[in-house]
């Protein structure tokens, strides 16, 4: 039951409209376990300690040039289910360029231009208020092979590594008003009630005059379930 409840906001493993799930979705139930120190810990704090932020995707290709595209500020807070900020979470993003092309050798079927000044990768660690911030360019939509004339809505991939294993999340951030959202099987695999959580909010107060458009994207992660270690000195 715990599992059913917990998974309610997430897509199912098997979603036939997204064809690749058919052979990659487990068919047996997950095994619910009582958490131990192994689950109550996670890589976030160690990474925060060992890595530097890299948040400006418009220049981090290191060429001295700037990426082409509509300059876009993406910022928000990482929160737990109670709305409390989650500091020390590693947020990594990766995305296509303004033309919808990824810097990846597997991207061979879409004849869109590469941008020598854009890698499409960034990372940072959330601050005490759970906030993160990137400067990037708005990614373009791109075709994929799921069904005839399939196009992914513009999105930014986001990976979060927090302070406990249950907070692991890989998601995608979308843009408001994108007509491709309604026909995208990956977006629509999420339950109807939680889909909007993946759509960023245009914020004109964040938009910087003569510089960049601002989008807010808060991320809500599962909190740690109580473990016997948290009751005191353990044992």
């Amino acid at each position, binding site marked *: 039951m715990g599992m059913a409840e917990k998974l309610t906001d997430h897509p199912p493993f098997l979603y036939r409209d997204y064809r690749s799930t058919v052979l990659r*979705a487990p068919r*047996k139930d997950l095994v619910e376990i009582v958490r131990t*120190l192994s689950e109550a810990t996670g890589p976030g704090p160690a990474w925060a300690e060992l890595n530097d932020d890299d948040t400006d995707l418009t220049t981090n290709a290191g060429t001295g040039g700037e990426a082409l595209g509509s300059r876009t500020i993406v910022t928000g807070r990482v929160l737990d*289910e*109670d709305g409390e900020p989650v500091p020390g979470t590693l947020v990594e993003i990766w995305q296509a360029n303004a033309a919808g092309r990824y810097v990846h050798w597997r991207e061979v079927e879409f004849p869109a231009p590469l941008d020598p000044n854009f*890698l499409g990768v960034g990372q940072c660690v959330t601050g005490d208020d759970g906030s993160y911030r990137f400067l990037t360019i708005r990614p373009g939509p791109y075709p994929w092979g799921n069904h005839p004339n399939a196009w992914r809505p513009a999105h930014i*991939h986001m*990976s979060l590594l927090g302070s406990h294993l249950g907070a692991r999340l890989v998601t*995608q951030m979308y843009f408001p008003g994108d007509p491709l959202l309604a026909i995208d099987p990956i977006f629509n695999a999420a339950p109807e009630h*939680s889909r909007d959580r993946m759509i960023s909010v245009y914020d004109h107060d964040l938009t910087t005059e003569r510089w960049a458009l601002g989008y807010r994207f808060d991320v809500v992660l599962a909190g740690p379930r109580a473990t016997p270690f948290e009751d005191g000195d353990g044992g």
Partner: protein
Amino acid sequence: MTKRMLTPSQTVGPYFSMQLKPVVVPAGPDVPGRRIRVEGRVLDGGGRPVEDALVEVWQADAAGRYRHPADARDEPPPDDGFSGYGRVHTDFETGTFRFTTVMPGRVPDPRGGLQAPHLNLIVTARGMLLHLHTRLYFGDEDEANAEDFVLAQVPAQRRPTLIARLTDEGELPTYAFDIRLQGDGETVFFDL
């Protein structure tokens, strides 16, 4: 109090392998401990290797310590070269993954006992809308495995899916561990 809706999970897609910063080893070369190698495949429901999977590792050091503020025991903290986190992607041609690390020590369990040495693994790929959590235990640790707190919560007939096989006892002991996403011998995945 009403809980907030979680941000839904989405697939990692096919392009992370050149985008996410590589973190090949949880433990640098000077970290104390017995070096081991782990190699395996991620297999789909048709038994085919998944050529674009991401396998992440979270582990304790040789003394059984996590590099984490919640692990506040008296033992010396992990060496500076030890992050405890690593990630590799499967090879596009063969679907195999491999990494080298130190054998993790035993971590306390909530009963006051010790867990068997294990690696916490997270696997995800294109075609997976959610990542999966599993654990790798070591095939030559029968005694510790038999009393392990988490293995005991797994139905006995499915436990072997979590035990890596020692395939090379040479200078760099090597353990084989295939992750079966679906079908016969489907790996046990955990709801944390």
